[in-house]
């Protein structure tokens, strides 16, 4: 039999038992929906996209843990006291950038508005590739001179200056006059390391920070290639070891990471020492996939097995007229794959709709209070992966019932079917 015949047959059979078809399709669709949403979320967090075009070459340190004895543990961002040890001294990195997230209250004649901001250094503009609509980023001399300059996104520009470009215009932030030097396209909140609505020199606030190990900074490392990741990681660990030798006896410092984007995505806010990096992250992904797969597989197997009785007669008739066991297995498997495919496509379409409709829920990171702009990014790999998943699901859930059904002896099965 040709595949087209199998397909027609599968559709006819499904049509003749709409309840079963509906149940199976819904089961698969829900699974694919969940899988797709998880993958889209995950893909949006870890795959490179403007301005984080180098995300696959970046490592990040966001968290530090400090212990005194067994009783006192502090966990927070990176402090200014650590900067000298883990930035310029890390030779394996091509570029290192330090930044801090913040909120800016921008005052204009018409009033004050609050915007999420990043305080960044000049290297930040090198690691990320911002699309400047107008103006430019600030330079090293401006940074060193603590120039009161700011880069804003289009949205802020629209709020403050309307349709005109704000470049060259001024605004008041914390009682100080700042000059807008650049306007960039809105950044998606899924760009965890670059997202903000305004960016100002970190040097402006650096001196006000304590020279502690704990603080609220993050450090980004750009590697020439992924191959340098381990060198960067070990250099940071070496720095950590050196710092620990200078600490009081009962004190101990632990630096979380540097993390790849995948590791950062899975790290969460628990004890950084209990996170085992990529291995854990991958195990986590595999376990999630398996759980997602087990439920619909069992569901479909159960549905298919309950139908064996109902289909005994048909199978026996087919066998009496020349269908071999293998042909029957193929027919039933094909049917199951068609069910999974229909469910898969429905799940896929619904997931795309959900990704837009519920983008706030899906993509807003926990640290962000005010919801920002989201570009949902769809990777072809996520789609291809889902279709492969659907196919495997179809085979896994179909093979056992198909084989069991195909084994029926026609003579016995027809007896059972006699009215």
């Amino acid at each position, binding site marked *: 039999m040709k595949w087209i015949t199998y397909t027609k047959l599968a559709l006819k059979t499904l049509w003749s038992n709409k309840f079963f078809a509906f149940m199976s399709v819904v089961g698969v669709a829900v699974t694919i929906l969940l899988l797709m949403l998880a993958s889209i979320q995950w893909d949006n967090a870890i795959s490179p996209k403007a301005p984080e075009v180098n995300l696959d070459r970046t490592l990040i340190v966001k968290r530090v843990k400090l212990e005194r004895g067994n009783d006192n543990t502090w966990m927070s961002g990176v402090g200014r006291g650590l900067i000298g040890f883990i930035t310029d001294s890390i030779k394996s990195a091509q570029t290192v950038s330090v930044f801090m997230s913040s909120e800016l209250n921008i005052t204009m004649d018409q009033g004050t508005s609050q915007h999420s901001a990043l305080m960044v250094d000049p290297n930040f503009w090198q690691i990320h590739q911002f699309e400047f609509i107008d103006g430019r980023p600030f330079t090293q001399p401006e940074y060193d001179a603590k120039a009161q300059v700011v880069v804003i996104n289009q949205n802020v520009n629209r709020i403050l200056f309307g349709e005109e470009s704000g470049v060259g215009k001024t605004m008041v932030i914390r009682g100080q006059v700042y000059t807008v030097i650049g306007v960039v396209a809105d950044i998606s909140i899924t760009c965890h390391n670059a997202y903000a609505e305004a960016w100002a020199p970190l040097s402006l606030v650096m001196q006000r920070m304590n020279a502690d190990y704990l603080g609220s900074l993050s450090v980004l490392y750009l590697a020439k290639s992924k191959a340098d990741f381990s060198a960067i990681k070990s250099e940071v660990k070496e720095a950590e070891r050196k710092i620990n030798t200078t600490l009081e006896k009962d004190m101990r410092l632990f630096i979380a990471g540097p993390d790849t984007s995948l590791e950062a995505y899975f790290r969460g806010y628990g004890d950084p020492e209990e996170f085992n990096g990529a291995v854990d992250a991958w195990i986590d992904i595999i376990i999630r996939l398996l759980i997602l797969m087990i439920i619909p597989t069992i569901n479909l197997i159960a549905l298919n097995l309950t139908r064996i009785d109902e289909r005994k007669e048909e199978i026996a008739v087919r066998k009496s*007229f020349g269908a071999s066991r293998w042909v029957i297995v193929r027919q039933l498997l094909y049917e199951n794959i068609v069910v999974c495919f229909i469910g898969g496509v429905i799940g896929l379409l619904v997931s795309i709709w959900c990704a837009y409709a519920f983008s706030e829920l899906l993509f807003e990171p926990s640290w962000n209070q005010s919801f920002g702009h989201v570009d949902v990014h769809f990777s072809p790999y996520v789609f291809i992966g889902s279709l492969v998943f659907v196919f495997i699901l179809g085979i896994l859930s179909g093979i056992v019932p198909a084989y069991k059904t195909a084994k029926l002896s026609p003579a016995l099965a027809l007896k059972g079917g*006699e009215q």
Partner: protein
Amino acid sequence: MIQLHDVTKIYRTRSVETVALDSINLTVDKGEFISVMGPSGCGKSTLLNIVGLLDNPSKGLVTIDGKQWDKQSDKVIAQVRNRTIGFIFQSFHLINALSVTDNVEVPLLYRNVGSKERKRLVAEAIERVGLSHRAKHFPAELSGGQCQRVAIARAIVGNPQIILADEPTGNLDSRNGAEVMNILNSLNADMGATIVMVTHDENLAEKTGRTIRFFDGRQVQ
């Protein structure tokens, strides 16, 4: 064409052993039309199942078209069922999910026939049993006699050398029964099909070339 040598079939259930066929020896020549008679439960359907390779005998040899098939692989047996044998079951056994056309097409799906040719053969077989006006209907929408005729169309669509008919007129009134008999007769006469027909009707049996009678699994005549 068909040879049974010392064929015995024993059904074993938990407590009872039923000897459905007891040392049957039977030869049916090519082109013969024979009828099988006997009281209910004497083993007629069992005989047809074994001849049609749907079931294995407990003992004895079955030869179809000069070859012994029971030890062959599933694939080879499937091919014989497909090419050589056409079954008309005691209770139709149509596939309810499929239309008349699709039901009749079933045997052709398992051989190399293009879809155009399939359509032609199916239409021909349906016409032969006089059901062209019901081709798109589903079994549930047909009368018993019409279902029986669909079952016949399905059995003959692949032009098999052997037709095994298990009470093909059992569910029909005498007029419809006669019509079915006509179809079988012409298949036998025109196409040279070898036919084994189970029946309870002496009048129909008389119209066949030879009648064999069973009693309690034994051939009595």
